[in-house]
């Protein structure tokens, strides 16, 4: 399915230097807003520790909490469904739609439904879904995927949005004013909300103690959909469970501050029972999560609350764009989640990192992201999924480094080449030559210098 790996797609992305710089700076600005928000809370580091511990505890009792959540949710009048994988999730959602014979469907942001490719599945069944988050609507009209889990259209400039809206919403050609464009989307989507028969939402947190779930948005689109439609389907991965409502105190303090630097999202809506006359469904999805739970080195990734702080801080993400990760969840967290879903197809992702560790430093639930990236590399190479060039290079390096004679000889060869025949390395066949010059060769190696000066 994938046509390009991360490095190839990133090479495409950075061809437009101005846009790459804009992307880089804009996301860094979001990272700075996150810092400001975090520094305003003296107990920030304590909060991260609590969040991490609550998630550790929950994962260590996951089956228990899932069962008690289900029991309470059913008692609340919510219909609970379980899906082993994305295919089953899509079938369940389609069945509910088919049972009611509904046509007008709105959806608010849910990375899980992106992961399961729900929209594509429903289109094949002749059902179209309107995405209502502004960023998601923009990319949906353009037939693109979101490039960021919090800011889905961050790869686009306002003139792109203006062109798209001119084509689909009949806005003025060349009017790039975000206020004007947002107003046009508001009017356009309002009609869909008012007429909607079924609403699909994601879930940010599911509370085992009370059998309810929380959905966070700034735009109010999840609420507009859920409170209008007669059928509400909420979709969640099994890792969204938290033990008690009081734990939301910790997570809601962290989520928006980490994501955008806001003190909290505009709406943190707590759904416990369907409104009178409404049907409320909840689809609980595994799709590889219990497998990840069994991998001691990687289970920490299930603590993720999808804030995208690791995206915004990542020097590779900022300069390669979300689409280069060719998966629903991009960025550093996506690079440790996706190899679990399909190790072969996503073998390139753990290598799309400098391992600088900035992701782990900003993660609100203290996932050791950069360490997991490093560990996935070992697993992927051992499984035989590393690219041939990387494998040959590593084998060559291992041979050189394990033989002192070969090592000294290679060093000398390298210095001689750089000195007398630089064109042999200063060319397009050498990936190190891209965007940089090779260094001037030293006159002698450290070993030679040491021999001369040891006395």
């Amino acid at each position, binding site marked *: 399915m994938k046509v390009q790996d991360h490095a190839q797609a990133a090479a495409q992305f950075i061809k437009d230097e101005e846009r790459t710089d804009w992307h880089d700076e*804009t996301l860094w*600005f*979001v990272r700075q807003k996150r810092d400001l928000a975090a520094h305003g*809370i*003296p107990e920030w580091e304590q909060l991260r520790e*609590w969040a991490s*511990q*609550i998630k550790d*505890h929950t*994962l*260590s*009792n996951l*089956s228990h909490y*899932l*069962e008690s959540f289900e029991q309470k949710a059913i008692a609340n009048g919510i219909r609970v469904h*379980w899906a*082993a994988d994305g295919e089953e999730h899509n079938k369940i959602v389609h069945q509910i739609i088919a049972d009611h014979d509904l046509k007008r469907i709105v959806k608010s942001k849910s990375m899980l439904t992106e992961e399961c490719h729900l929209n594509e599945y429903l289109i094949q069944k002749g059902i179209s879904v309107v995405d*209502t988050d*502004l*960023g998601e609507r923009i990319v949906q009209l353009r037939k693109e995927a979101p490039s960021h889990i919090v800011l889905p*259209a961050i790869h*686009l400039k306002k003139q792109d*949005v203006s062109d798209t809206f001119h084509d689909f919403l009949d806005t003025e050609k060349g009017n790039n004013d*975000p*206020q004007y464009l*947002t*107003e046009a989307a508001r009017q356009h989507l309002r009609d869909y*909300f*008012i007429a909607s028969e079924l609403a699909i939402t994601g879930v940010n947190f599911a509370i085992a103690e*009370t059998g309810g779930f929380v959905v966070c948005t*700034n*735009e*109010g689109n999840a*609420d*507009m959909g859920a*409170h*209008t439609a007669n059928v509400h389907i909420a979709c969640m991965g*099994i890792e969204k469970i938290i033990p008690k*409502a009081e734990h939301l*105190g*910790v997570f*809601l*303090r962290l989520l928006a501050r980490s994501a955008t630097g806001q*003190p*909290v999202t*505009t*709406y*943190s*809506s*707590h*759904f416990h*029972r369907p*409104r009178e006359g409404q049907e409320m469904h909840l689809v*609980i999805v*595994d799709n590889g999560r*219990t*497998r990840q*739970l*069994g991998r001691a080195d990687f*289970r920490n990734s299930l603590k993720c609350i999808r804030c995208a702080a690791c995206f915004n801080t990542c020097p590779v993400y900022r300069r390669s764009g979300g689409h280069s990760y060719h998966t629903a969840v991009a960025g550093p967290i996506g690079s440790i989640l996706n190899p679990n879903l399909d190790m072969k197809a996503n073998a390139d992702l753990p290598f799309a990192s400098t391992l600088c560790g900035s992701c782990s430093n900003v993660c609100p639930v203290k996932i050791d992201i950069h360490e997991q990236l490093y560990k996935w590399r070992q697993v992927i190479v051992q499984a035989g999924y590393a690219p041939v060039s990387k494998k040959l290079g590593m084998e060559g390096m291992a041979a050189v480094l394990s033989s002192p004679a070969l090592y000294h000889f290679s060093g000398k060869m390298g210095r001689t080449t750089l000195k007398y025949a630089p064109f042999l390395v200063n060319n397009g066949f050498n990936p190190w030559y891209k965007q940089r010059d090779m260094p001037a060769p030293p006159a002698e190696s450290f070993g030679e210098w040491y021999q001369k000066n040891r006395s």
Partner: protein
Amino acid sequence: MNSRDRILQAAAENQPTQRDLPVIGFERLIRYDEPAVVFEQVLTKIGGQLVRVKDLEEVKKRFAEEDQDKFCVDATDCTEEDRLKIKAWKATDLALLHTLYIRGSFGVAENSAVWVDELAMVNRLLPFICEHLFIVLEEKEIVPTMHHAYQKTDVSRTGFGSFIAGPSKTADIEQSLVIGAHGPRSLTIYLIENDSL
């Protein structure tokens, strides 16, 4: 075995050994000398505004001054008859809802969120579909942080409830902040002052 049982079994088999829940030490949390002042500062920053009022009577007077040619609803003090009527409204009935007055249970200083449950909003759609939202809040009901907020109420007491912080907004186009995404274009908090009670 069905998917439910398979998932629960796989989770039970693969989950790590027991880790303990932390105790949330309230002594570690930020303190504010004047929570209401912080509440107002944060609210202003996120695009809302605060108006200090003496009592509910003053709120009612202000409601009477709203443009009554527009669709305006005061749900701060409903009769049972009103509640039934408001509850029955559908999206098509509410499409032109201009101004809504409702009560908030309590506010949170650190993020200026206000808890509004289903009892207070009467109809779940109201605070989201209106163009301009006004929430009445008592100053003594402002707590410092979200931890304190969750001690104030059982969030499952009514079928639905939301923390509302400011007007609806988006920055999905080039990170330019626009107020009034799908929900209200403005949010005003009427704060009933302590000493006037």
